[in-house]
């Protein structure tokens, strides 16, 4: 210590200490700021660093029939998903995953497209992976960063096609769904009901998704599957109990003529509860679970049969002769006719009206008939005249009042409103004022012309006839509170109409459809169809004295309804527990709707018949 003076050294020691103190203090303050003041910010970052959110899809509620039998349920399925990463990285991961999960180029592009829309959510690669694939992936887990496999409830419809249009289908939420949906809980990628009951009762059926957190390391490998952080359990949706009789529904599906287009609706006349609702051709709703394959989707859409269409509520057909009961009811209600009323001109195979000749379906003619007989024989000439007697205005008025220009209000999505004139002005618009004649009344009277009804709407008419004359809105889950319409017929009039309809099956146009000693009332129809062969209708109910079921069926291009009436009577018989083994599947029935009117030139204008534009209503 020769040359360094102690005093100078002490100064330097103090300065050095001060420097150390300053440095340590500055660092200490920096740490204090980071650790204490900004703690919450960094803690959040740290958590989000290591935790990735994985959605636990909630099981959808079960759909059962009226007896609790399962129509739609959930079965465990495996999903394979990748945690979100930037897109190029995701492509690499998909590429490396592709050979194990059998993904093609197109599949990868499709997945990336979907990922592009929801870049912050896990990308579900396989939504219904076979167990072998899942176990193979799990074995090679180390090769696949960000891989998450989990069991997820998978929608399953045990009866598949038989209940297809009833349950509808489920699918991923689209942007349109999000825009139109009341609930804000929906996110892209969620599963919602797209059609049928799944859509109508989506809010009830859809549970609330849970969430779980998996822990990942810096390179994205999932290091801890469970218990990384408290998640949220998925809450299952509520069970929806429908009015469907699954047994009957299955039966309908089994007896419906294969490869034919059409629909069958069965309901309880006293309540409007739908017992069966079937449309053909069907589709496989299970194929839509977890994303429909593009091939199947293309096939469904390209098919000329339009399998996705629910022909019970989403298709309109001219009601044909089934409409005659509506005309008869109007006439009875307004006192224009009774069951015994005969028309002025007996049926000689047709009716000359103005310069046109309107034919009856039976060219040989029915002769003079009462209303009861006319219904049984479905005589067109009789109803032409009844229609004229009723008058166009009354006909349209009652048609509107009874809901033939509206929807039934059934709790199914996509129901079409029936087409029916709103008033005589309708024809002014259609043809121009004074460019149409009362000929439209003739067409309307036999269920042709400007009249297109859904099967369900026509079944509703027969439900009214089969009960006390009041309508019950058809429903599958919840009956509506709204009061139905009333035909305004007294019990005698109703009984008369029923007797006429019993005669249809006993000795009228549907003779061959009788089953045992079951008293079935009903009405056939062959509605003309400009696109091809006529559509066949049959709507009936039984037992006729105390109807327990109304069944309506329409089969496109059935020609003469040959298969329709036996189908309906078999369904009724099955429901009522009658023996159907001896019943025939097909019976040649007469085409009971007149061919299109033919113009007979030079014929004198008809003056014997005039359209009494308004018939007096019953006080």
């Amino acid at each position, binding site marked *: *210590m*020769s*040359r*360094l003076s*102690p005093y*100078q*050294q*002490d100064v*330097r*020691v103090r300065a*050095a*200490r001060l*420097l*150390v*103190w300053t*440095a*340590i203090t*500055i*660092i*200490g303050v*920096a*740490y*204090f700021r*980071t*650790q*204490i003041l*900004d*703690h919450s*910010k*960094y*803690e959040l*970052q*740290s*958590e989000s*660093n*290591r935790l990735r959110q994985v959605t636990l899809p909630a099981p959808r509620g079960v759909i059962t029939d009226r007896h609790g039998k399962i129509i739609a349920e959930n079965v465990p399925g495996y999903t394979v998903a990748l945690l979100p990463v930037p897109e190029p990285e995701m492509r690499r991961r998909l590429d490396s995953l592709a050979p194990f999960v059998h993904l093609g180029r197109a599949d990868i592009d499709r997945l990336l497209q979907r990922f592009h829309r929801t870049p912050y959510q896990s990308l579900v690669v396989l939504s219904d992976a076979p167990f072998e694939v899942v176990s193979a992936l799990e074995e090679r887990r180390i090769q696949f960063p960000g891989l998450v496999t989990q069991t997820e409830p998978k929608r399953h419809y045990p009866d598949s096609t038989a209940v297809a249009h009833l349950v509808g289908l489920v699918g991923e939420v689209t942007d349109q769904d999000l825009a139109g949906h009341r609930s804000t809980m929906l996110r892209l990628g969620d599963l919602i009901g797209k059609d049928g009951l799944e859509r109508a009762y989506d809010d009830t059926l859809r549970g609330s998704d849970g969430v779980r957190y998996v*822990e*990942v*390391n*810096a*390179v994205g490998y999932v*290091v801890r599957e469970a218990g990384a952080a408290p998640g949220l359990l998925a809450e299952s949706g509520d069970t929806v109990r429908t009015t469907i009789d699954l047994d009957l529904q299955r039966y309908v599906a089994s007896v419906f003529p294969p490869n034919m287009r059409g629909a069958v609706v069965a309901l309880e006349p006293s309540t409007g509860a739908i017992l069966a609702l079937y449309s053909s051709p069907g589709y496989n709703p299970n194929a839509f679970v977890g994303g429909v394959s593009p091939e199947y989707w293309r096939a469904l859409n390209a098919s000329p049969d339009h399998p996705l269409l629910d022909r019970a509520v989403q298709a309109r057909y001219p009601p044909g002769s089934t409409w005659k009961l509506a005309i008869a009811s109007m006439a009875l209600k307004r006192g224009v006719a009774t069951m015994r009323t005969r028309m002025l001109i007996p049926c000689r195979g047709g009716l000359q009206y103005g310069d046109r000749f309107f034919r009856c379906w039976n060219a040989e003619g029915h002769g003079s008939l009462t209303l009861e007989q006319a219904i049984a024989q479905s005589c067109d000439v009789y109803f032409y005249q009844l229609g004229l007697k009723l008058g166009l205005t009354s006909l349209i008025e009652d048609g509107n009042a009874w809901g033939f220009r509206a929807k039934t209000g059934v709790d199914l999505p996509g129901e079409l409103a029936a087409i029916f004139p709103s008033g005589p002005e309708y024809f002014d618009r259609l043809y121009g004022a004074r460019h149409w004649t009362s000929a439209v009344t003739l067409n309307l009277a036999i269920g042709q012309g400007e009249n297109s009804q859904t099967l369900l709407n026509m079944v509703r008419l027969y439900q009214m006839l089969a009960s006390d004359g009041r309508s019950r809105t058809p429903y599958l889950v919840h009956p509506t509170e709204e009061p139905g319409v009333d035909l305004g017929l007294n019990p005698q009039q109703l009984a008369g109409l029923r007797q006429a309809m019993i005669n249809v099956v006993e000795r009228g146009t549907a003779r061959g459809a009788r089953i045992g000693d079951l008293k079935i009332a009903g009405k056939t129809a062959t509605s003309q169809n400009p696109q091809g062969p006529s559509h066949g209708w049959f709507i009936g109910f039984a037992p006729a004295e105390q109807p327990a079921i109304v069944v309506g069926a329409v089969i496109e291009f059935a020609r003469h309804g040959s298969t329709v009436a036996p189908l309906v009577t078999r369904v009724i018989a099955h429901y009522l527990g009658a023996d159907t083994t001896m019943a025939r599947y097909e019976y040649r029935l007469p085409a009971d709707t007149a061919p299109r009117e033919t113009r007979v030139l030079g014929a004198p204008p008809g003056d014997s018949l005039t359209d009494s534009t308004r018939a007096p209503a019953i006080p």
Partner: protein
Amino acid sequence: MLAGYGLLIVYSAGRTDVPTIVATIWLRQLIWLTLGITCAILIFRVSPRLLEWATPYVYGIAIFVLLLTLFFGTGAGTAAGTHSWIGISKLRGQPAEFAKLAVILMLARWLAERREPPATLRELVYPGAITLAPFLLVVLQPDLGSAIVFVAILFSMLYWAGTKPGMLLLLASPVIGLILAFSTAVWGAWIVLLFVLLLWLRPYVWEGLAVMLANIVMGVIALPFWRHLAPYQQNRLLAFLNPEADPRSTGWHIIQSKVAIGSGGWFGKGFTHGTQKRLAFLPAQHTDFIFPIVGEELGFAGVVVALTLFAMLLFVLIRVARRATDTFSSFCVFGIAGMLFAHIVENVGMAVNLMPVTGIPLPFFSYGGSFLITCALAIGISLRVAWESRAHGYADHSQ
């Protein structure tokens, strides 16, 4: 005092286990530590006289090995792209760490031999050269962090020798000029300030001119020099200014480090329970970024304890330097303190973005044999010095 060192070493030994529970690195670190303590005990037995005699050879060997490293060095798999490792059969090490000690010894020897503190810039040329040789060799590796440590050693020892702070500033002025050259206005102000400083300090005229010239040259070459820097060095400096700019690559270290530290809170997530660390979000968590683990797992409390211990160590070293019986020992110990101080400030500071990221280990904490042994040797020397001064019975001090 001895107990204090021992405690610190044991403490640090306990802490080195922290980051590496996952791997078996901590066992190897334990071996290194044992080796380090052995070295410390051995060097403790060595008289400073012997050390002083051996200094030129040690220095020569260090420079030679650094040269070897430059030509035959390997990245050793840890720090890709650098040549800071040298392997002799199975024995591998980072000679730069030992070179730091060698520079301390060499400077101590030169400064101790002089009677007067270096007062002129010309007299500073020789110590500057002593430092510059390893400095350049290390920069060429390239290892900017270690290079900065050499500068810190030089400055701390010159200061201890009694060089006026103004003179040190003049010595440092070219570097400051280099940094400030990125903004023309600031650089201009700096040149004016420097001119005033030169008038005040009154060095020889040509010295003053040399300083001015050096500064101007630095200002001119700054941008070319910047372009000459390796991209990763550029990025590190840029990331220091704004870590969020590129969060995936360069800023990643800083962000993750801050997240780890910040999520620690008052008392941390608990020993070995740091999630950032466990899930490998922290880069180089067992070496350069070891301190964030302290912050994450033990919280602010752990940080304060660690900082306090470091401060105590530095104070003790300063006191030892103060009481040393001979100048060589005194310079040695103060140089060691300067070295450790540079390491601590740089390492701990970069974890919270106070300092730019340079791969520089934290004394006693970071995994790495070379530096641990270097530190152990440094402590060994200090202990010897302390022991000698105590043996002299605190002749001229009482405290």
